[in-house]
């Protein structure tokens, strides 16, 4: 039987892949706590000095706040617009809506480099000066499909007669939405928002093209890396990493597999 051996080969392959994927992540995280002032072995002891230094850097703090602002504005915008769009898509069937649905989801598959360049030249054409707000528009464009698709999937699984029962028992369309539909959709919506935040928080390419002088955290890190590696970059990257991982894990608790598998 070669079964045992092929099993071993299989596991080695899986192990090597995981190592290749996650070793760099672990290295960055580890070195962000390294006391030594170079990003190299040996490990010189645990220290928070790079975090202190990062937070002592005014430009870093501005970039971090910019990232938070973008994430919050984009999350609120996509939640409101995405939920409305999902509601329309799940409630009415028409060719126009099918077309609309393809348009909404298109940014998901367009390369971000292309989107970044396209947005920048568009802003230039209409005389809009790139700043944090234009970066938010770019983020919203790409993250809207997440919200629309996830919330729409949840609405599709919702028994229509639950809404009809609410209307039948005296609720106006708005009351039925607020008291019945929204609470039932809320977990999926919250999950979608967390995915949007995770995506927005580490987005570089579109932000780089469209934010003008207002750097977000990834843009700031990119700028610093061009001047050589300072270990405080590891600390900044780790902040992004932990935020993204936390959001994604939390999102998974709110959205069932069926809703992501779209």
């Amino acid at each position, binding site marked *: 039987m070669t079964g045992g051996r092929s099993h071993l080969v299989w596991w080695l392959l899986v192990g090597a892949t995981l190592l290749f994927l996650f070793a760099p992540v672990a290295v960055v995280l580890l070195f962000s706590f390294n006391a030594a002032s170079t990003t190299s072995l040996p490990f010189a002891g645990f220290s928070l000095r790079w975090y202190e230094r990062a937070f002592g850097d005014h430009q870093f703090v501005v970039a971090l706040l910019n990232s938070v602002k973008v994430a919050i504005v984009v999350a609120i915008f996509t939640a409101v617009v995405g939920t409305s769009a999902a509601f329309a898509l799940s409630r009415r069937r028409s060719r126009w809506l099918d077309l609309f649905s393809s348009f909404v989801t298109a940014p998901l598959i367009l390369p971000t480099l292309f989107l970044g360049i396209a947005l920048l030249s568009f802003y230039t054409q209409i005389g809009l000066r790139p700043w944090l707000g234009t970066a938010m528009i770019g983020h919203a464009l790409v993250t809207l499909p997440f919200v629309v698709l996830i919330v729409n999937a949840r609405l599709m699984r919702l028994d229509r007669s*639950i809404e*009809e*029962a609410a209307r*039948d*028992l*005296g609720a106006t369309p708005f009351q039925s939405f607020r008291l019945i539909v929204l*609470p*039932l959709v809320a977990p999926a919506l919250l999950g979608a928002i967390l995915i949007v935040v995770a995506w927005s928080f580490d987005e570089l390419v579109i932000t780089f093209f469209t934010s003008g002088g207002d750097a977000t955290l990834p843009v700031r890190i990119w700028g610093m890396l061009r001047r050589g590696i300072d270990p405080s970059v590891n600390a900044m990257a780790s902040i992004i990493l932990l935020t993204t991982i936390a959001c994604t894990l939390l999102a998974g608790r709110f959205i069932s597999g069926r809703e992501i598998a779209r």
Partner: protein
Amino acid sequence: MGTGTGRVTRDDPAGEAAIAVEGVCKRFGTTTALDGVSLRVEPGTFVSLLGPSGCGKTTLLRIIGGFEHADAGSISIHGVRVDRLPPNRRPVNTVFQRYALFPHKSIFENIAFPLALQRVPRAEQRARVAEMLDLVRLPGIEARSPAQLSGGQAQRVALARALIGRPRVLLLDEPLAALDLKLRKAMQLELRRIQEELGTSFLYVTHDQEEALTMSDWIVLMSEGRIAQQGTPAEVYERPANVFASGFIGEANLLPGIVAATDGTTARVRLADGGAEVTAPANGVRSDQPVVVSVRPERLRIGRAGSANGAENRIPGRLTRRVFLGNIRREFVAIGPDLVLVAQRGVDAEPIPNGEPVEVSWQAANTILLPDEGASHGG
């Protein structure tokens, strides 16, 4: 099979109907769901909309509830036209087939939902919810969640929720379809008890003819978007107006044939298959008219050939099969090359072995002649 309790109040036809449907038409794309349906539900009665799936009965109920809009015709509820009103402004409530309880709300919140919308004081809400739960015989379950209920309990809660606003008319869309047979039978009697206790008019959609016969004061039988027949349960069972009604309500032997002779009161019909002749009340048929002879299985008697019993119609045949159903026996008798009659006999009747020549007999008065519309001859 029971009949209604006969509480039909039709003595005031000019009075205000609980529901008046006038010439309602509805099309979905190229399919016609409703083709000029008119009916009245008298106040305080239990009316069933009966028919096979796809006959338009649920569409009609949804139009009355306000979930669909008719292309033509009008709906009035207690004298008020409701065609343009949304569901929340119609004086009717609906019990849905799949209960449609709000999964994120407790049983109390579910039942009190209409009261909460009207900002009824909390103490009154509590009292009325308790009263409703007593009515549906589920006292004290206010704190539970819908996920903790069985199907039968969920449907009782849905009923309590639909009734708490004290609607004068309740619409029920196959509310028992998802329950098992035994529970369904118990719930049929429960529904009837609640309807009589409250005096609310019920319009009940079902595809189960036995359910309709058990519960209703009035049955509206639908087929392909039209009303095939309406009447009391006894009327539609004893005097079906057409082949469809005869085959759909109860069981019937449907035998196509041609009227050989008629004197206006009785007619003689030659059966297409086997050529035997049958005597029946004329029911307005003319000579040479193609008709369908309808006889209920329980009206047939089976005896050994030549046994006298005074029945006008006697056809020789051969016993082909017997099915034991507990309280009755069902026997199949071949009377022509492709013609088999179904008869029903008590379990105490003298057993006749399979393959024996027998004589099927029944009285002319128990025979119904129906115009042959070229419809299906099943049954």
